[in-house]
């Protein structure tokens, strides 16, 4: 019997160790010089070039040049990618400046916007059914992905006409179901982004009453990396920058190769060349490193404060936050918006400058 008792004890011990191991797998990645890097991206007009670069050897070319391995992983769920980055499983992720601030930065992960791929210039749209003025939104139920960029666009739009979120009722709706939702009679107002917005606006009675052309530069679609990883591995930052601007140069070329690339990107995002061109028209792409440097070294203070105010108003900066400036944001020139002792989001143009000077 002793032998049996022992074996059952062993069994429990084994089960315990297995559980502990399963949790240990969740321990944060240690930042140090390393060779393998993983970056998450999801389907969005401004991020499609990353998928193209992965499929057409541009990623491998730059990774080989710096003797590292880079894997770009496509997430079907945008937020899950950011969550994985925040948890430490990924070294970089494509995210908007707002989500970078609300998820990794508010979660204590010091993050750096290595480069901005584009800003939304009409991609995010407020749509009303049968009404053509933004003022008509008063009292309506508004379907949108709550706490997302759409929510931000709504808040900014209402602010512009002297209303607030109290004047509407927000209904959280999954982005995957927006088009189906619009077809139902009880949905009369909606905030969504392309390609869904373009699809919905084709339907009868759908009016674009506000879009992100009125918020230029506020919604930045960026490559966000872990600051420590970037500092310890300049090769990673250089390779990512190289990949991006090589792909951008290809896209902006205006020749047959550029068209072939755009066709591939369009098809990968479920549309065709014309559909992809239409989305690009509502997107201000930073094709050249100079464009990005000029934008980022311009005055971002006010834009950043709009975003921090929205996040603070919605409790997204964490419970400890006492003001919109609770988390400090270091701009490219070193000025800090918010708390200088709690800087968790940084802009940098260091690597883009190397690209501009051809030093990569």
């Amino acid at each position, binding site marked *: *019997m002793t032998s*049996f008792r022992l074996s059952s004890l062993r069994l*429990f011990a084994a*089960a*315990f160790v297995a*559980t*502990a191991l*399963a*949790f*240990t797998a*969740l*321990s*944060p990645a240690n930042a140090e010089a390393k060779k393998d890097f993983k970056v998450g991206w999801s389907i969005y007009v401004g991020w499609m070039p990353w998928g193209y670069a992965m499929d057409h050897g541009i990623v491998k070319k730059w990774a080989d040049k710096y003797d590292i391995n880079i894997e770009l992983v496509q997430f079907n769920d945008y*937020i899950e990618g*950011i*969550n994985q980055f*925040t*948890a430490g499983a990924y070294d970089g992720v494509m995210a908007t400046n707002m989500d970078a601030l*609300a*998820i990794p930065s*508010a*979660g*204590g*992960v010091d993050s750096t916007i290595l480069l901005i791929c584009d800003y939304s210039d009409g991609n995010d749209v407020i749509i009303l059914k049968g009404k053509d003025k933004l003022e008509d939104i008063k009292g309506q139920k508004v*379907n949108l992905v*709550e*706490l*997302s960029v759409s929510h931000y666009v709504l808040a900014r739009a209402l602010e512009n006409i002297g209303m607030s979120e109290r004047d509407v*009722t*927000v*209904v*959280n*709706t*999954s982005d995957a*179901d927006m088009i*189906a*939702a619009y*077809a*139902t*009679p*009880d*949905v009369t107002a909606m905030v969504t982004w392309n390609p869904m917005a373009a699809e919905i606006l084709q339907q009868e009675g759908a009016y674009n009453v506000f879009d992100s052309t009125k918020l230029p530069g506020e919604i930045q679609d960026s490559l966000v990396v872990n600051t420590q990883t970037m500092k310890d591995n300049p090769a990673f930052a250089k390779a990512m920058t190289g990949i991006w601007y090589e792909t951008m140069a290809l896209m902006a070329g205006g020749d047959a190769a550029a068209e072939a690339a755009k066709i591939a990107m369009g098809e990968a995002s479920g549309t065709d060349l014309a559909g992809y061109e239409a989305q690009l028209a509502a997107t201000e792409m930073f094709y050249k490193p100079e464009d990005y440097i000029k934008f980022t070294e311009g005055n971002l203070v006010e834009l950043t404060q709009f975003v921090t105010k929205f996040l603070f108003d919605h*409790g*997204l900066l*964490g*419970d400890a936050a006492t003001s919109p400036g609770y988390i400090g944001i270091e701009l490219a020139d070193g000025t800090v918006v918010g708390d200088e002792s709690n800087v968790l989001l940084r802009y940098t143009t260091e690597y883009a400058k190397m690209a501009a000077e051809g030093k990569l």
Partner: protein
Amino acid sequence: MRRLINRQPDVVVRFGLMLLPFVAVIIAYMIASEARLSVNPNDKLLPGWSTIAAAIERMAFLPDQRTGSYLLLQDTISSLSRLGIGVAVATLIGGIFGILQGLIPYFRATFNAFTGVLSMIPPLAVLPILFIIFGLGELAKVVLVAVGIAPFIIRDLALRTEEIPHEEIIKAQTLGASTWQIILRIVVPQMLPRLIDGVRLSLGAAWLFLIAAEAIASDSGLGYRIFLMRRYLAMDVILPYVAWITLLAFTLDLALRLFQRIAFRWMYRGN
């Protein structure tokens, strides 16, 4: 015989063994959480107890700053009423169709294949159709729960009805009972406790459909809150919500079992 299958743990050991896996998971969580928090004190993935306690206080015991309502209470009421109505409708439909399909050959010939096929359709895959028909409001959520579990209940109950010993039906007929009387006096009384079993088994699926429906379009509910919080990885809120849903589901199951024991005492006689 001193064999493993004959050895019974006494009360104390049994209680200890029951707690063991729970304690093991909690300790493992604490170790992992500690490890992550020592690297990053603001880590959101595996929050510490004090963070979780603060989140519970904020969600359950303090009115929300923006709306003034108690969020946990509001979410629980929304979710339980949707779940309750959906399950009740499914139970009613399941009871009627199950008994008729199990008992009446013409009815079975008409509907058996249909409910069989229906039960194989994943309701989440046809959501856009449900939206168009039932809208995006409360009705669609209730319908999703009902549509999700009704076919299972129907099929389960039809099989149980067919299991009623044929002798009973013959006997009732020799005593002059009509079809209607057989249904009311023989089949329904025997099937009610089986129906409760079927509902208990489908409660897990009902929660799944409810949370899926709330994730898609909603402004309150336990599933709504979890998916909203997931947007910024607020595991300190999500973990207590998951525990709360588990507790609610466990309590519902227990309540149905107790109700069955008390209301259908005869079932437990003899064994």
